[in-house]
C-alpha cells in the first residue's frame, strides 16, 4: 500500500458532488427552542383539560418537552445524538427538581422570618412574656414582645462546648488512623466503630448523655454541658471521617521531604501535613457543626427548656434555637393567638440559617488564610 492510498480513501469521488461530510445532519438552531415553546403551550392545553394549576402546567410542559425534544433531535441527527439530548435534558430536569426544595425553603424562611426579625427578637428573652402580652400584640395594642436572645446564647454556648470537645478528639483520632495505625487491628476497629457512630440516631446520643450525667449527678442533671456531650457524640464521627480524607490526600512526598531533612514524625505531622490539609479540615469541622447545630431531640432530653437567659453551661436549663422553634410552634405562648409565637419561630429559624451561613463563611476565610499558596509566578 502506498502512502497516497493511505491518505485518500479509494472510493472518494470528487468533492464537488457530495454534501460537506463534517457538518451534515445538523439540527437547525431554532429546533429546540421552538419545541420548548410548543411544550409550554401544549402543557397549558393539557392542564386546562384536567383542571388548570400552575404546578400541573409546569410538570406537563416538562414531560412533553422531555419526550418531544429527544425524538425530534433523534429524527434529525440520529440515534446517538437523540440519546445524548435525552440524557442531557434529564440531568437538567433532575437539577431543577433538586433545587426546587432548596429555593422553596429559603424563600419560605425569608418571607416568614424577616417580619419578625427586630431588635426585640435579637436582644430580649421570653422571660416575663405571657399570653396576655401576645394577645395585646395580636389585638394591635403593642409590639410583639419577647425574643430568641436566650436561645441564641444557648445555641452558641452549647455548640461551642461540643466543638471544643469533638474537634481535638476527632482530629487526633484521624491523625492516629492515617499516620500511625499502619492498618493494624486497632485502626481497623476504630474505623469500624466510627462508621457505626455515624449512624447513631440523634435522640440515642441525647439519651446516652442524659443517662451518663444521670448516673454521675443524679436523675435531674440537665444543663447545657450535658447537651454538648450529646452533640459531641454526633460530631466526632463526622470530624474523624472528614479529617481522615483530608490527611489521606496530602502527598506522601511531602512527608518524605520532611523526614529527609531530619524532621521528627510528630513535627512533620504538626508543621507539614496538617497545614497542607488545614483548609479541608476547617470545612469538615464546619460541616460537622452545621450537622449538630440544628439538632432538637437530644437537646430536649439533656438541656431542658428555659425562657430566661442562661450563660452558664454548667448549671440550669438552657434553650437553643431549634428547641425554641419547637416550643413556639407546638405550645404557643398565647394559645388563643398563636401568630406572635409563629412569627418568633420563623425569625428564629432565619437566625439559625444565618448562623450556619456565617460559620461557612468563617471556615472559608480560615481555609483561605491557611491554604497552600497559589502559584504566583
Amino acid at each position: 500500500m502506498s502512502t497516497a492510498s493511505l491518505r485518500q480513501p479509494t472510493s472518494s469521488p470528487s468533492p464537488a458532488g457530495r454534501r460537506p461530510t463534517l457538518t451534515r445532519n445538523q439540527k437547525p438552531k431554532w429546533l429546540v427552542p421552538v419545541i420548548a415553546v410548543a411544550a409550554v403551550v401544549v402543557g397549558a392545553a393539557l392542564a386546562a383539560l384536567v383542571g388548570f394549576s400552575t404546578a400541573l402546567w409546569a410538570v406537563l410542559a416538562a414531560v412533553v418537552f422531555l419526550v418531544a425534544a429527544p425524538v425530534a433531535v433523534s429524527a434529525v441527527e440520529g440515534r446517538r445524538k437523540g440519546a445524548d439530548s435525552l440524557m442531557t435534558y434529564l440531568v437538567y430536569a433532575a437539577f431543577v427538581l433538586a433545587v426546587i426544595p432548596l429555593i422553596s425553603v429559603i424563600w419560605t424562611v425569608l418571607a416568614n422570618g424577616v417580619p419578625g426579625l427586630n431588635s426585640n427578637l435579637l436582644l430580649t428573652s421570653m422571660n416575663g412574656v405571657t399570653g396576655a402580652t401576645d394577645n395585646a400584640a395580636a389585638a394591635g395594642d403593642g409590639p410583639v414582645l419577647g425574643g430568641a436572645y436566650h436561645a441564641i446564647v444557648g445555641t452558641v454556648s452549647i455548640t461551642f462546648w461540643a466543638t471544643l470537645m469533638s474537634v481535638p478528639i476527632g482530629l487526633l483520632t484521624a491523625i492516629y488512623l492515617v499516620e500511625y495505625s499502619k492498618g493494624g487491628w486497632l485502626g481497623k476497629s476504630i474505623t469500624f466503630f466510627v462508621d457505626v457512630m455515624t449512624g447513631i440516631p440523634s435522640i440515642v446520643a441525647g439519651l446516652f448523655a442524659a443517662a451518663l450525667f444521670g448516673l454521675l449527678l443524679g436523675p435531674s442533671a440537665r444543663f447545657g454541658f450535658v447537651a454538648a456531650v450529646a452533640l459531641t457524640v454526633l460530631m466526632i464521627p463526622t470530624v474523624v471521617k472528614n479529617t481522615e480524607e483530608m490527611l489521606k490526600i496530602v502527598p506522601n512526598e511531602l512527608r518524605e521531604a520532611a523526614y529527609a531533612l531530619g524532621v521528627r514524625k510528630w513535627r512533620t505531622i504538626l508543621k507539614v501535613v496538617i497545614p497542607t490539609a488545614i483548609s479541608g479540615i476547617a470545612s469538615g469541622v464546619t460541616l460537622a457543626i452545621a450537622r449538630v447545630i440544628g439538632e432538637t431531640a437530644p437537646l430536649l432530653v439533656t438541656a431542658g427548656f428555659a425562657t430566661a437567659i442562661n450563660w452558664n453551661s454548667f448549671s440550669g436549663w438552657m434553650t437553643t434555637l431549634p428547641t425554641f422553634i419547637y416550643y413556639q410552634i407546638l405550645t404557643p405562648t398565647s394559645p388563643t393567638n398563636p401568630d406572635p409565637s409563629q412569627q418568633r419561630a420563623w425569625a428564629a429559624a432565619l437566625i439559625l440559617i444565618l448562623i450556619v451561613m456565617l460559620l461557612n463563611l468563617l471556615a472559608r476565610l480560615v481555609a483561605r488564610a491557611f491554604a497552600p499558596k497559589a502559584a504566583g509566578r
Partner: protein
Amino acid sequence: MSKRIDVENLNVYYGDFLAVEDVSMGIDARSVTAFIGPSGCGKSTLLRTLNRMHEVIPGARAEGKVLLDGENLYGPGVDPVLVRSMIGMVFQRPNPFPTMSIRDNVLAGVKLNSKRISRSDADDLVEGSLQGANLWNEVKDRLDKPGSGLSGGQQQRLCIARAIAVKPEVILMDEPCSALDPISTLAIEDLISELKEEYTVVIVTHNMQQASRVSDRTAFFNIQGTGKPGKLIEYGPTAEIFSNPTEKQTEDYVSGRFG
C-alpha cells in the same frame, strides 16, 4: 564536611520480599557515585537505605551494615532522624512544601525542628544555600513568594538548596532530573559537579550519558527476572564501566544491547 560510606553485606527487604541482595561497596568522600541499572533492580531502594528512609514504608527493613566514616547507621541505638539530618536526600519529583515561601522552604530543616536562628543568620543561610544550588540570582527578588510558583527545574534546585541548608555530610539524589527538561538538567548536572567539592554525592539515574558526565564511579545493578532480588553486578571508575566493563551484563546494558 563530607564523609565516606561503606556498605557491607546489605540485604534490603519489603516485608518478606528480598529486594536487594548482598551489596558491598565503598563510596568515597567528595566524589560523585552513580547507580545505574534497569527499572526495578533496586537502585532507588538501596539509595533509600543509605539514610534510613527505606524503613518509612510499612514492612520495609534492611539487614547488614552501612558505615558512615566507620559508624554503623543500622547499629543498635542509632536514631534514624539524626542519620537523615546528616545524609540529605533529593527526590525524583521536585517537592517543595506548598504552604511555605521560597525562603521558608530553604529554612525548612531549621524551622520545622524549631531551632532558634537569628534573622541575620537565617538570611545568610538562605543566601548561601540558594547560591550553592545556583538559584540565588533567579529568586533573590521574590523570596517571599510560594515555592510552588517556580518552574520544575527551579523547584528541584530549591529542593537541593533545602537539602544543603541542613549542612549534611552526604547528599543522595534519586533520579533528580527525570522530570526536567534538558536545560534544567544541565543546570542540575553543573550543580552536582560543584557540590562534590564539599559533599559526598550519590545519584540514581536512568540516563547513562548523565552518569558518564557527572560521576566519578559507577555501580551497575541488575535483576535476573521478576520476583528475583536486585544485585550489584559491577562497580568501578565510570570511564571503565562505560568503555571497558569486565562483566558481559554491564557491557550489554551500557551499549544498549540489554535484554
